[in-house]
């Protein structure tokens, strides 16, 4: 058995999986609070990548390049995506609060199609090259056969983002309000939490995570178009379900498992069947553990 090859695949899988995890967090957080699958989430990710493309394009033309451009691009993309997420919830979902569950779902699909076509019209349906912003780090030399510098940046940035998210949810006031709203919405209102504001915040945070994911993956694949949100969205949704929808650590675990499974399948069997491995794994896990990997209900005394 070739352990070096296996290790390479594992690293590649983790990189891919951490991006899935970033996007999956948005799905799972929104679902946890309003039981809605926000199908337009993949498009927010795509828009994040486009904004970063524009920013880094301008920066490159003005003679700037390197990691700092990537970070600035990511920040602007995150702000932009946050505005999209906020507006999306206001326009597409809030008016349907209290409607049967199918209505906001249809609205989500509509919003997804709208955003995809809007970017296609406003920008282009073609693939655009995404500039290489991550330099080859010298200290990466001995590791280069396993992970590239870009991959390292992706792993570090996702890890930092997830630490920040954990701190936000565990210790800040809005984080506690989000958890309370997720666990018991009526009681959240009775202690004085403005549930509408919490829902908006959830969309904003999810969109920021998706945009960061979009920027990172675009700098890895080197090209983007208006349709990348679709597959990424479906995969991340799969990751969220895999981990147990509504469960935040589950989304991260689901993303990593999905990424590794895909890469291993592609590496050992055939890369043509990459998606088959992803969805096959989903089917398998849903048969064995219908609530997802971590999706078990905490026992509650009544």
């Amino acid at each position, binding site marked *: 058995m070739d352990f070096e090859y296996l290790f390479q695949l594992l690293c590649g899988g983790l990189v891919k999986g951490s991006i899935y995890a970033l996007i999956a967090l948005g799905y799972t957080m929104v679902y946890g609070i309003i039981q809605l699958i926000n199908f337009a989430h993949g498009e927010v990710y795509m828009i994040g990548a486009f904004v970063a493309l524009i920013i880094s394009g301008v920066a490159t033309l003005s003679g700037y390049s390197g990691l700092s451009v990537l970070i600035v691009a990511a920040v602007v993309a995150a702000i932009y995506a946050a505005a999209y997420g906020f507006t999306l919830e206001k326009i597409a979902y809030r008016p349907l609060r209290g409607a049967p569950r199918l209505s906001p779902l249809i609205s989500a699909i509509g919003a997804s199609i709208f955003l995809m076509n809007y970017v296609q019209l406003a920008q282009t349906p073609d693939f655009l090259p995404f500039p290489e912003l991550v330099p080859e780090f010298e200290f990466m030399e001995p590791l280069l056969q396993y992970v590239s510098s870009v991959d390292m940046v992706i792993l570090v940035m996702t890890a930092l983002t997830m630490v920040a998210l954990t701190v936000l949810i565990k210790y800040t006031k809005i984080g506690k309000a989000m958890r*309370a709203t997720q*666990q018991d919405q009526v009681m959240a*209102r009775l202690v*004085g939490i*403005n549930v509408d504001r919490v829902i908006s915040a959830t969309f904003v945070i999810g969109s920021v995570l998706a945009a960061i994911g979009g920027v990172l993956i675009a700098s890895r694949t080197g090209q983007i178009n208006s349709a990348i949100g679709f597959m990424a969205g479906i995969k991340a949704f799969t990751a969220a379900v895999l981990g147990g929808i509504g469960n935040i650590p589950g989304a991260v675990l689901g993303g990593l498992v999905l990424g590794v499974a895909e890469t291993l399948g592609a590496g050992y069997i055939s890369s043509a069947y990459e998606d088959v491995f992803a969805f096959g794994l989903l089917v398998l896990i849903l048969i064995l553990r219908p609530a997802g990997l971590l999706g078990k209900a905490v026992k509650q005394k009544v």
Partner: protein
Amino acid sequence: MLELRNIQTYYGNIQALKNVSLTINEGEIVTLIGANGAGKSTTLMSICGVNPPRHGEILFRGQPVHRLSAEAIVTLGICQVPEGRHIFPQMSVLENLEMGAYLRNDKTGIKADIEQVFGRFPILEKRRNQAGGTLSGGEQQMLAISRALLARPSLLLLDEPSLGLAPLIIKQIFEIIKQINAENNTTVFLVEQNANQALKIAHRGYVMENGAITLEDKAENLLSNEEVKKAYLGM
């Protein structure tokens, strides 16, 4: 202190409250008794702005509050312990208490109040880092009442605090309610099916049937009222 004037509340097209009027004076314990489904919980949810009345008025210290958001009503000092306790199941005991003080910003005051809760209920201090959902029913009720007190309410609404608890614990809970009323000068509006216990600690009482108030009197008079005895006290 609180006055309900002919409120009518609906669930969709179904009318749950039909012209409910009642008054609660400062410092009182007032109880609302009635059978299952009479509209007692709906009355509380209407006061709290979770299910606001479609018609009628609610006045708190003379000001109309029936159009305010649930958040604004908590800010005014009206707090509810809902039926079934509604502890945040995956949050620790400490976090549950902190959520009660969600709208407060005085960190030291909150800390002192939490210490006071732990002084009153040592069992909660012992379980401070345990998930709320793992507590026993009695412990959850203590936590739910304490959480509401952390908002420093001037009017505390209690919905069936004795539901599903052992007789010994029920006695303890009613003792606590009396204490809160006496020590903190908190006005209490107590909804109960356990009419006997509720009327024993209350000053006044209302009887509700099918979404309407049918009787109102001093608690001791209700306790000796023949109809109440037959319908609610099992005598």
